[in-house]
């Protein structure tokens, strides 16, 4: 698939990517390398993986990272209870060595997302979400999967990937990722979409908003992101905002409409105060072009 075709296919599934991202995805697919997508919360990083899975028709396997995530949750775990039950059943069996071999067979293996992606008979999209939330030890643990597409299980040996999965990692940049991890990935930094692209996203995903309202919401969101806010409105929040406006029957971003619905875009009291200090609903409506 050429980059232009990939871009068009992403649009068909409702993801409006700019040329940077399309080219990075194209390279990741062609070179069979993981793609690390970094950017502020809410710019649409996780959606990239979902859209790619939808375009390629591969199942999406998601590993959500958090502090303290270990291989038992990410890779595999032995079904300990089941092993114990088997021990009880085999108590009087004459050849204990065979029984032990039996206990560490695939039958007792609990697959977690990474192993599932590696052992899947068909291609998959593996999303390792918010990798910056995991611990540095876990990052090192990912190296083998990301560079060789295989995992080592001491009792079973090395399990190579049946089909190399499409791997997408996302990071909110809360902590610096290790050089080793970054070296194994292609890199893409995502910014908030420009108002034109965001308007297209809103028009596509918020039915009933119409092009005019979508453009106004996108402009208003772009304006809010220029302010020094604790939490800038994400694309999902602009969508919620547009949906809220539609639900309340507003056809444009007027000061009254902003007053009624701003809490869908700004979720911190300090941010709402800051917006009020910068001129409040009137300025937002003016920036959005909804007040003539």
């Amino acid at each position, binding site marked *: 698939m050429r*980059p232009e075709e990939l871009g068009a296919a992403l649009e068909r599934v409702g993801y409006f990517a700019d*040329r*940077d991202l399309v*080219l*990075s995805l*194209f*390279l990741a697919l*062609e*070179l069979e*390398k993981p793609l*690390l997508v*970094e950017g502020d919360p809410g710019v649409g990083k996780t959606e990239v993986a979902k859209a790619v899975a939808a375009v390629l028709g591969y199942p999406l396997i998601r590993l959500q990272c958090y*502090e*303290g995530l*270990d291989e*038992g*949750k990410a890779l595999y775990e032995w079904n*300990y*209870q089941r092993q*114990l039950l088997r021990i*009880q059943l085999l108590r009087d069996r004459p050849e204990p060595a065979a029984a032990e071999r039996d206990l560490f067979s695939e039958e007792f293996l609990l697959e977690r997302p990474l192993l599932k992606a590696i052992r899947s008979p068909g291609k998959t999209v593996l999303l390792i979400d918010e990798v910056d939330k995991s*611990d*540095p*030890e876990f*990052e*090192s643990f990912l190296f083998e999967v990301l560079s060789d597409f295989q995992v080592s299980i001491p009792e079973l040996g090395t399990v190579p990937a049946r089909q190399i999965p499409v791997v997408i990692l996302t990071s909110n*940049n*809360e*902590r*610096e990722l*290790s*050089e080793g991890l*970054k*070296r194994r*990935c*292609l*890199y*893409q*930094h995502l910014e908030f979409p420009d108002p034109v692209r965001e308007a297209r996203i809103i028009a596509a995903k918020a039915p009933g908003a119409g092009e005019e309202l979508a453009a106004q919401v996108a402009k208003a969101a772009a304006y809010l992101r220029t302010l*020094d*806010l*604790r939490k800038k409105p994400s694309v999902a929040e602009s969508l919620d905002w547009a949906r809220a406006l539609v639900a309340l029957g507003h056809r444009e971003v007027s000061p009254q409409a902003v007053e009624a619905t701003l809490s869908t875009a700004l979720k*911190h*009291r*300090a*941010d709402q*105060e*800051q917006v009020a*200090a910068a001129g409040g609903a009137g300025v937002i409506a003016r920036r959005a072009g909804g007040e003539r």
Partner: protein
Amino acid sequence: MNEEILARFGNDLRRAGVRVGTGELADAARALALVDLTDREAVFLTLRATLVKGAGSLEAFRLVFDRFFAPPETRRRRQEQERLREEERRRALQRSAEELTYREPHPETSYGPEEVRFQLTEEQLLAYAEMPAERRQALQDYIERSFMNLGTNPRIQRSVEGVVAGTINYWRRSGKGAGRGVVVEDPRESLLWRDIRTLSEEEFPRMAQLIRRFSARLGTALNRRYRPGRRRWRVDFKGTLRASLSTGGIPFRLRRLSRHGRRPKLLVLCDVSGSMVEYSGFVFQFLCGLAAAVKSLECYLFAEEVERVTPLLREGLSFAATLDRLTAASRQWGAGTDLRRALDLVERAEAAHFLAPDSLCLVVSDGKTVGRPAAIERLGEFARSVRRILWLNPLPREEWGGAAQFARYAALKECRNLAQLEGILRGELLPRHRAA
């Protein structure tokens, strides 16, 4: 694209501070085979996706790319400009050296040397060239007067040279001479490397974001010890055996141990006296960042008295609002510094809670205080009640003077730009990350 060209490009990136390995260059070569090499933007995006590994390197990459893959006429023009700039620099150096040379007016009757040349660095000579004409003339007059009246013996030469170098250095540091000598396009001249005094208000949000990111790491440091917990990092054999008693000795349920996050207790003392006013923007950004990231934080501003500002920082207002409230509420702004008294007052106010063996004390100050010897002794006593004192000094190390003596009881760190701050947070507060 020719591999040799790619390797040279990689080399240029490394020189600009972007870490590029051979593996990445191999990826880039493979990737370039997939795109149209006549499409400049496609080449740019392809190289960026394969060679850049962090947002911090994007700008450096763009600059190096533009420079490396410039059209021939642009490159020729740039080379010509560089040649002219170099020529002008050499002329300025020569002119400055000439102007600062003292020539004996009557060599035939004098016993001393015919001319005296000073040992000045290139930076000093260039800074001199930038000084206004009347300042340069005043310096020349001073040299001439000194040697004519006092003679040119080596002792006098040394002292005149000291005054000349000192005057030029003062002028350079006062910020007036910052224009030339700085390569404008140097990618390292990014926000991270800029002197924190020169950051403008528009750059505060970006700086705040950086500080928030560094400070967020403070909360993620982990304890060495394992304790029972849900995160399941290690099997707790003792606990598992004990629990197995209830199932007739069969260890049916595994108990686990995990490492818990260390919540650092942080006591922050910020100097807001007159000499620190120009750093206040940085200091408050730093405080707001810390307050957002660290739960157990106690923060005091000090000059002649101390003021507890923790509740204000905890209100969760925006940075601008916090700054407004702080400046309006504080009476310490621009006062003199009395560190000994400040430590006394903090100890009295904060007797038990934050003065504990597991808390870290962070002092942000230039160390210019009245009664320094007494303050040093007092700091020594204070150091015994906390785990460690880390002192961030926004002045360049060579200007610390007597403040360097605080090193007896505190780890003194030069903190003039965000890159240094990051290094300190990484290396000093988070040893685990250093190992990683």
